[in-house]
């Protein structure tokens, strides 16, 4: 960002924003309709979980775990704008800690899970401290080599991980069946979503988003850049730890091969497909990535074609389809799945229905909007744009504005659209 755009921010604070953004609330019938749709969605999911086979229940547990991993990466990638390619390191480390505590130290599952969360947070915090000094793309390399070392070296030390035979990780009492364990995983996912939502809405969350916009502007508004960057990493690590623990006890035996470099790359892609900083999209996309190969195996002609004609495992098609989806999102629709769902999620959150609640999230719509509307959208949405859409060389304001409005506490403008959608729900 250029110096001139920062200067522009300082001299033109967003004052009209609060007025333009006056919050509209649906009436009782409107709320009833929204609650009915929500009940239909969640009821459908609950029915699905209750009626599927135990094999599929196990897959649903995996989908929930992937969703937690997606949320974890979303904190780093979506909220702070950094790339972490070492998440398989965090997840794997906490998986081994959790499994080891339960099967070697005789602790309960819950102790193992708590320890895994702490270990994940501590490891990520340590790497985050490095991140304070190293910026942008170089950080991606540090996390990459960390994950590489963890997967190839630490996880291979037999004294720590029992090498190739793996570390047994029994499930907790009461959650030994696949279906019960899936319920546990979904519960933990709900907890993670709740924590994520509350933190993004808090002062800390606004701080993190401000730092992402522009460290210089944030610092000049007395936002503690160091603290918020480290905090984002610790939060991400805690989620990764939770996911690691659930992962370990889902498969029953943890081996180093569960956590490979390719996994970390695929996890990054699933967050991109879900939409950076868009919680709903990330959760759905992650679940899709987890289930994809099993889903295509359910379609008999497709499975026959892949297994008999091509003589390949359906797993590999997750790589192809996943990366194609990610490229499609990056090039054509920077809002990702979350952006495409935003008409629905915004409406459910208690706003008016609109096909473009946040300007569409892509670069195609922005020309259509008039100047006034565009200004307003920019300030509300600047975050998403600068994260995913091409930065506009002629028009630096969208990047600068939200950061400038961080201190005007009443307005939503410092948050991404997803975050502000959620905000409207509660106020």
């Amino acid at each position, binding site marked *: 960002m250029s110096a001139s755009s920062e200067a522009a921010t300082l001299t033109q604070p967003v004052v009209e924003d609060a007025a333009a953004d006056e919050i509209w609330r649906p009436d009782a019938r409107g709320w009833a309709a929204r609650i009915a749709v929500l009940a239909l969605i969640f009821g459908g999911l609950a029915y699905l979980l209750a009626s599927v086979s135990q094999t599929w229940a196990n897959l649903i547990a995996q989908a929930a775990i992937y969703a937690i991993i997606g949320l974890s990466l979303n904190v780093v990638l979506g909220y702070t704008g950094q790339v972490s390619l070492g998440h398989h390191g965090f997840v794997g480390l906490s998986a081994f800690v959790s499994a080891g505590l339960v099967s070697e130290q005789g602790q309960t599952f819950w102790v193992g899970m708590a320890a895994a969360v702490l270990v994940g947070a501590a490891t990520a915090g340590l790497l985050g401290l490095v991140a304070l000094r190293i910026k942008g793309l170089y950080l991606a390399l540090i996390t990459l080599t960390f994950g590489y070392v963890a997967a190839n070296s630490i996880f291979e030390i037999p004294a720590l991980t029992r090498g190739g035979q793996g570390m047994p990780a029994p499930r907790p009492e009461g959650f030994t069946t696949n279906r019960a364990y899936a319920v546990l995983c979904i519960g933990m996912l709900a907890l993670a979503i709740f924590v994520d939502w509350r933190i993004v809405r808090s002062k800390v969350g606004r701080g993190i988003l401000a730092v992402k916009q522009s460290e210089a502007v944030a610092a000049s508004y007395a936002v503690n850049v160091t603290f918020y960057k480290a905090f984002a990493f610790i939060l991400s690590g805690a989620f990764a730890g939770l996911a690691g623990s659930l992962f370990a006890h889902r498969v029953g035996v943890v081996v180093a091969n569960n956590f490979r470099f390719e996994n970390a790359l695929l996890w990054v892609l699933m967050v991109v497909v879900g939409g950076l900083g868009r919680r709903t999209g990330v959760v759905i996309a992650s679940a899709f990535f987890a289930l994809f190969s099993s889903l295509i195996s359910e379609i008999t002609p497709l499975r026959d074609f892949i297994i008999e004609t091509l003589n390949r495992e359906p797993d590999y098609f997750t790589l*192809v389809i996943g990366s194609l989806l990610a490229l499609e999102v990056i090039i054509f629709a920077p809002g990702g799945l979350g952006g495409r769902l935003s008409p629905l999620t915004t409406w459910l959150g208690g706003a008016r229905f609109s096909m473009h609640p946040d300007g569409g999230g892509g670069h195609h719509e922005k020309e259509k909007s008039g100047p006034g509307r565009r200004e307003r959208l920019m300030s509300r949405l600047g975050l998403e744009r*600068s994260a995913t859409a091409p930065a506009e060389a002629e028009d630096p304001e969208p990047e600068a504005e939200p950061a400038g409005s961080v201190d005007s506490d009443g307005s939503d403008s410092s948050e991404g659209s997803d975050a502000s959608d959620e905000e409207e729900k509660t106020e």
Partner: protein
Amino acid sequence: MRTGIVTGVIVAVIAAILLAGQGDLTGPAPFVILGLTNGAIFGLVALGLVLVYKGTRVFNFAQGEFGTWAAFFAFMVMRDDGVGGVGLPYWAAVIVALFGALLLGLAFERIVARPLLNAPRVTVLVATIATALLFIGLQIVFFEIEPENLRGVFTSDNAGILSTKRIFNLNIDPQRQVAIVVLLAFGVLLAYFFSRTDLGLAVLATSQDAFATRVVGIGVERMSRFIWGGAALLGGIAALIYVPLAGLLIPGVMTSNILIPAFTGAVVGGMNSLPGAFLGGITIGVVQSVSLWAVGHYHIGERAIVEVIPASEQISILLVLLVILLARPAGLLGQEA
């Protein structure tokens, strides 16, 4: 000036180890030779990474996979066993493979890089990751997963004096000698290109300020095509040298075996310095194999096989990277932070 000093120090250290360990097969000398040649391959891939970084300010995670494709192309057109393939001679296959890699690079530029010309760098980085994974997935779908062997430049009957000559009292695989020569050639060629030719300067200008470059009449798209095509070619050459050495042609081999050390080499040398990529790659190769010798479990000769630290060569990479990024983020020869 600094280039000279750094080069001198690295060369001196390597030469000292080699001369001290001459003839001692249990000492570090064989490992240093191994490291030098591995380092040459890291250096070749690092040259491609630096080319892209200089031109577009992006870390190109697809660099390794351009190479793996080239290796698969070469394998497919060379094989002649009734299953498939054309049965072309080696050098024809090399040309076909490099042409294929070049086309892939240009296709990547047109489909992915150009629409993202003005996107944030992190976005382009994620796009290269997606491309690398797509390439690996497609290789798995199109080719067999069983490891294959790719022929090198020399076979046992045409290597001639290269295979019998002893350097530092050691036999060195002819293919490894090829790696060092090719790296040297490309290092000099690219350094000349970026400092002395109009096209090279235009590429550099594009990376500094695309808009201003366009204003003075340089086609940014043309530069972008040149950069990605060139990077893909370099990746292809590196793979055609490395894959026969490793004796392992599997999907994603260049990404899983070479990309991370090459990145580290490029960063150690300075992401925007071509001599740096060259030296960084060599340094990483030597550090890796010396650490293997010191604490790893691949001891040969009379020393017993001891398993001290698994994958010590990978830990050494992380340590070198951390030290460099914390102490001198611009790298040994880099010009900017």
